[in-house]
């Protein structure tokens, strides 16, 4: 086909449940991508799988499939997603169950696996792969007992293979977001996986749409210019064989697509723009050319890139203690003084009970008096009210739980005009921290498997 229409209906787990359905029903699309994995989602899925071997995938995806499966099949709109999590086979079984309930058959679902390296960590470390933290350089061996998940970010190739085998739905575990656009482009246009410029074009296309509405008017600096944000259209790419593409959205939707909205998303979560390292290539964001082709149509072209590195990025998560936070609303007059007294009282009562936190393990924020941009925005002298937010973290769960018991008492034993306490005692939450590392791609790629089954 001349142009391929690729869309992204979910920028993160927790994004709009209606956006992917609106994309499907609001116009023509060939591909629908969805992202279900935040950095630490896989460790949550790990817990679920430990309790129940049939769990460990994004159950929200099954709800989506239930809503739209007949249309997907009838219109041959192909869905690529990482909803497979730690159990893509379980997810596929569930999809087939739903298909059977709906009386739909004759379509294929692919499972891509090989990203999960958790069971192999001891063997990898023993054979010299340090999996050092990319920010601190500490070796993973130092936290190995606390690791709850470890997945390599796979690139687009396995997804291309799945599409080549006729899959309507491709269920992956951890796969780079940018592959959700690159794979359809590489598959439809027969791109070579050594064509660095085109691979970079697909990678950049994916980066533009991977956060959903953030390129179509969402989170835009000049927000007052954006029409009908309530009904913002999620992005649609019209991709061409030469690697150029148009960013647009369905007719009749809110939001807007301009050089400025696309530029902002290009710079989102960006490091060195000349070297955007992905599993398939290293893309050069300084080569991108943007042109406003018409209302809500931005053409992206000129993209160049370099060969992929010998490594894949690994996202691991590990347990790092517990945290809890509590909030109270403090009204004026003298809201700031009362809030500061309240915070001091809470710490003193905890110390009296033998519970103290290191300075960098506790926080006091006055929301409404410069919690976000201290030193930059002016704090009001006399806010009419503010929200006092206290937080603690510690490896000792008991200490964090004890903190949670000290918030409510101030309502009757502290200064006046303190309100807004609901929801019971703040409970300790396990802190699941993120460990980014690199692993030689040869250790992963030989074990990547694509399996396709038909309903």
């Amino acid at each position, binding site marked *: 086909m001349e142009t391929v229409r690729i869309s992204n209906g979910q920028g993160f787990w927790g994004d709009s449940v209606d956006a992917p359905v609106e994309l499907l029903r609001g116009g023509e699309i060939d591909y629908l991508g969805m992202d279900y994995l935040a950095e630490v989602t896989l460790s949550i899925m790990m817990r679920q799988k430990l309790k129940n071997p049939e769990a460990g995938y994004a159950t929200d995806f099954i709800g989506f499939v239930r809503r739209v499966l007949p249309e997907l099949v009838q219109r041959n709109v192909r869905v690529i997603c990482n909803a497979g999590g730690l159990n893509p086979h379980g997810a596929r079984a569930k999809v087939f169950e739903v298909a059977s309930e709906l009386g739909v058959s004759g379509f294929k679902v692919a499972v891509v696996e090989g990203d999960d390296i958790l069971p192999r960590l001891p063997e990898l470390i023993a054979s010299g792969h340090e999996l050092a933290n990319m920010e601190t350089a500490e070796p993973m061996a130092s936290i190995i007992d606390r690791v709850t998940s470890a997945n390599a970010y796979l690139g687009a190739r396995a997804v291309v293979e799945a599409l080549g085998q006729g899959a309507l739905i491709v269920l992956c575990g951890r796969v780079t977001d940018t592959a959700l656009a690159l794979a359809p482009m590489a598959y439809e246009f027969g791109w070579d996986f050594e064509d660095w410029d085109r691979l970079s074009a697909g990678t950049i296309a994916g980066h533009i749409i991977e956060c959903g509405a953030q390129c179509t008017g969402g989170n835009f600096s000049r927000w007052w210019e954006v029409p009908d944000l309530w009904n913002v259209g999620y992005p649609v790419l019209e991709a061409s064989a030469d690697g150029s593409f148009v960013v647009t959205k369905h007719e009749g939707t809110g939001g807007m697509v301009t050089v400025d909205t696309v530029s902002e998303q290009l710079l989102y979560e960006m490091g060195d723009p000349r070297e955007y390292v992905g599993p398939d290539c290293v893309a050069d964001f300084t080569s*991108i050319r943007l042109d406003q082709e018409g209302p809500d149509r931005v053409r992206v072209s000129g993209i160049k890139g370099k060969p992929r590195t010998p490594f894949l990025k690994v996202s691991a998560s590990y347990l790092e203690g517990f945290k809890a936070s509590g909030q109270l609303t403090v009204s004026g007059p003298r809201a700031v003084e009362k809030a500061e007294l309240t915070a001091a009282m809470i710490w003193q009562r905890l110390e009296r009970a033998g519970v103290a936190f290191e300075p960098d393990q506790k926080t006091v924020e006055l929301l409404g008096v410069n919690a976000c941009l201290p030193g*930059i925005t002016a704090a009001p002298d006399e806010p009419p009210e503010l929200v006092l937010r206290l937080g603690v973290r510690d490896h000792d769960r008991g200490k964090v739980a004890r903190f949670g018991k000290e918030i409510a008492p101030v309502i009757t034993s502290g200064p006046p005009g303190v309100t807004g306490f609901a929801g019971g005692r703040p409970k300790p939450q396990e802190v699941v921290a*993120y460990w980014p590392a690199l692993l030689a791609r040869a250790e992963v790629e030989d074990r990547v498997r694509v399996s396709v089954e038909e309903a």
Partner: protein
Amino acid sequence: MLVPLYRVAHARSGDKGDGSNVGLIADTPEIYALILEQVTAERVKEYFREICKGDVERFEVPNLNALNFILHDSLGGGGTESLKTEAQGKTHGQGLLTLEIEVPANLLKPAN
């Protein structure tokens, strides 16, 4: 004339490990030349002194009339570890837009 950046530019920020990245995009190539000269990494570090505990790096993206800043150690540990309300850097871009620079009057559009 001394004007805040939001008169002549726009921005987007997000998290990048334990720090944030702030992309600053000039409205025109002429304004880009001005921000190249005036919005240095040192200036951004000073402006964010109460927020950014590490170094500030600056990258140039001339094809987009933009600069990209990385503000290391500005999120209290970032992600799920941070105790801060602002653990994602989503407000840093709007904060940078309040920084003032010198702009010749003929390059200014009327204020919104």
